[in-house]
């Protein structure tokens, strides 16, 4: 009797043990880049050499970059090797790492989970096309590296005749990621629509850009508003179905998020970024990833105070 009961139980238990064992050994995030330096000139520059001497805590470490890898061109998995991440932000982080002497590992989380992940200490920094706003600076310190230019992604032919974050949005639905800075902007526009007696401008919120784009393709949303290079990339990939309606200038910069008030890492990142810009590497990387409309900006801090 007992045997008959135990046999399947033992089967289950051993299956469990095997998977648990596998958990202990395997898993983890995609591998970091190879050992050979990708940017030898940068790494051997006097500034970077000096920074490594000044920041012995970073040298030889592996720091974790929290990303929302759903933005081809900025950060996504590599189609040729899905175990690797690629894009402008990925290269920028690796370059800073080479300058300061650390390696980078990645934690792919939802867009609105990036800052909590940084705050919890599960990640050390964020380079993931995130806009440095005062509100977000309550959770992290930002070092800016580029001006924000937004584009409006619509279905091919722009059937709703959208012209930006204005009255043309009234009665339409905009697909956005949870936590996007565009969410309050569209909400504010909606209030204006209703004040003028027009139907509201609605938002449909998702966890990543791919879902937003699907919402447009399936007719559930009329637009998606985000970084103009991101929008351009989506159009380039499906020119028969998608189009870019217009550009919107927002008073923001894109920034690297580091833990609040941790001056050593913040200063080191700022110095490394400055060197990367001075050496022309950031411009090279923008070209490499076809971020044609990016406007490099000298590093400045966005903090809560």
């Amino acid at each position, binding site marked *: 009797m007992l045997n008959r009961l135990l046999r399947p139980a033992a089967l289950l238990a051993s299956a469990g043990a095997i*998977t648990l064992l596998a*958990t202990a050994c395997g898993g983890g995030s995609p591998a970091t880049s190879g050992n050979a330096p990708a940017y030898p000139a940068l790494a051997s520059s006097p500034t970077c050499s000096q920074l490594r001497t000044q920041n012995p805590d970073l040298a030889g470490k592996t720091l974790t970059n929290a990303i929302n890898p759903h933005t081809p061109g900025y950060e996504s*998995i590599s189609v040729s090797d899905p175990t690797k991440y690629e894009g402008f932000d990925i290269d920028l982080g690796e370059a800073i790492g080479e300058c300061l002497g650390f390696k980078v590992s990645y934690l*792919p989380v939802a867009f609105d989970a990036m800052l909590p992940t940084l705050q919890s200490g599960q990640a050390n920094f964020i380079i993931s096309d995130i806009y440095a706003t005062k509100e977000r600076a309550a959770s992290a310190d930002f070092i800016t590296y580029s001006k924000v230019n937004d584009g409006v992604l619509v279905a091919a032919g722009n059937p709703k005749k959208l012209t930006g974050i204005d009255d043309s949005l009234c009665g339409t639905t905009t697909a956005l990621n949870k936590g996007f800075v565009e969410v309050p902007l569209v909400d504010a526009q909606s209030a204006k629509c209703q004040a003028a007696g027009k139907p509201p401008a609605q938002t449909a919120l998702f966890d*990543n*850009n*791919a879902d937003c784009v699907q919402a447009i393709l399936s007719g559930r949303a009329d637009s998606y508003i985000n970084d103009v290079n991101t929008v351009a990339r989506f159009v380039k990939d499906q020119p028969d179905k998608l189009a870019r309606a217009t550009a919107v200038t927002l008073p923001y910069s894109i920034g690297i998020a580091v833990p609040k008030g941790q001056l050593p890492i913040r200063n080191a990142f700022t110095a490394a970024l400055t060197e990367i810009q001075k050496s022309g590497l950031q411009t090279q990387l923008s070209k490499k990833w076809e971020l044609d409309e990016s406007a490099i900006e000298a590093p400045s801090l966005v903090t809560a105070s």
Partner: protein
Amino acid sequence: MESFLHYLSMPYLLTGILITLQATALGFFGGFALGLLLAGMALSRNRVVSGVARTYSVIFRGTPLVLQLVFVFTALPHAGVVLSPIMAAGVALAANEATFFAEIFRSAVLGVDKGQTDAARAVGLRPGTVLRRIIGPQAARAAIPAIGSEAVSTMKNSALASIIAVPELTLRSNQLASATFDYFSIFFASGVMYLILTGAITGLQLTIERALDLSRVGRRGRGRPAVPSTVNGASVIETPLATKELTATRKVNGAVSRAEAVGRARVALTINDVHKAFADHEVLRGIDLEIRKGEVVALLGPSGSGKSTLLRLINHLETLDTGKISFDGIEVGYRDAGVPLPEREVARQRVDAGVGMVFQHFNLFGHLTARENVAVPLRWVHRVPKDEALAAADHLLGRVGLSARGHALPRQLSGGQQQRVGIARALAGRPQVLLLDEPTSALDPELVQEVLEVVRSLAVDDGLTMLIATHQLGFARDVADRVVFMADGTVLEQGPPQQVLDNPKHPTAVRFLRAVHTVEV
């Protein structure tokens, strides 16, 4: 289609399956273990313990798994607990699933008939053994379908771990879709992968269900060629060996000496001023009785007179309010000073006192064959090796005329056969005193006789001390040395059968006996 097949065999996604399996395994096995603990706590009589379990359930069943995942991943580090994404997912899944497992286990345990516990305690099993051998196997069978569906649900829930960076199937599908814009082929492929995984779990569940299916057990005869059941002349084979004439003769021949012998025998069981109330209802109001070794006492009386309660107090299935019950010095359930003992020691006392019990509704262990039922006290109380115990069980089944039905499950036996197995089980522990609680009341009239014959043979052939609650007046007259008439929780009168049955003095006894006679005639 081509790209769908490409994604279906893509190593990146296949590795994702492995991680999905890991997260599922952590959630399932962790939840299973924690659920067992929670179910045990919830069933505890200690209010603090059960309260803790309930509070846990309220919190973890009442909040979304997504929040729990984010909490473990991003909030716990603030308290110094930093878990890797996969471990965080495992902890959150397990913590969440545990509440559902606990409810599954709890309802499965509560679903096992209370009579099973009574019977297990009565044969002297300790609480742990009752749980492991009797309640556990039956509850487990009942729980398997629900456990299977919980496993499937854990696997699907593991997809939520994608939001805390666990690189499982869903996260990988999402990232791949973002990079390739090949949205539908990818999600179709990963959907098929999930279906294969959940299908495998369902298959495993059905296999286990089939392996444990009791209705298949009888047919397979538990590894032995099935003994052909009594197709022809069933009644001849099934009638116990002791025939009516034989016992009647013995009765006549030994009647005088038997009364004398019983009168001279030492007292086996003393019942002193026993009181028992359930809530406000007073069931027993001062019972005093002395039973001598070898004596057969028939307890008569209307329903609700307290006969069953008295029997259940004697072997401590119920606790005394006041009074004392003693088997030759052993007070089952209490220390010398009347202090209650823990159940595991009570179990040993039942064995030391040598008290067995036969139940109105048989209470055979539903998951065990007839011979396994009879072998229970031998194997798990007296620690007799299995083969020896089963051989002894076969012998006992022979005594009650059921040699041919040893491999049948209780559900495959008639009521009369079940009760005979119940008697054989009670005898297996070699009791000094046998308590029979209306052993024929639940039987169809034509099955009553076969059981009474067995009981009669125990009295005559074995000289067993017996206390029988019964409504069978003829049987009481034939077999009992003494008839005790109870009503409203007291003994109204007692004496030799002829005296009480033919010349009752108390008006209530007169009325009751007249009513029963009318029915019998």
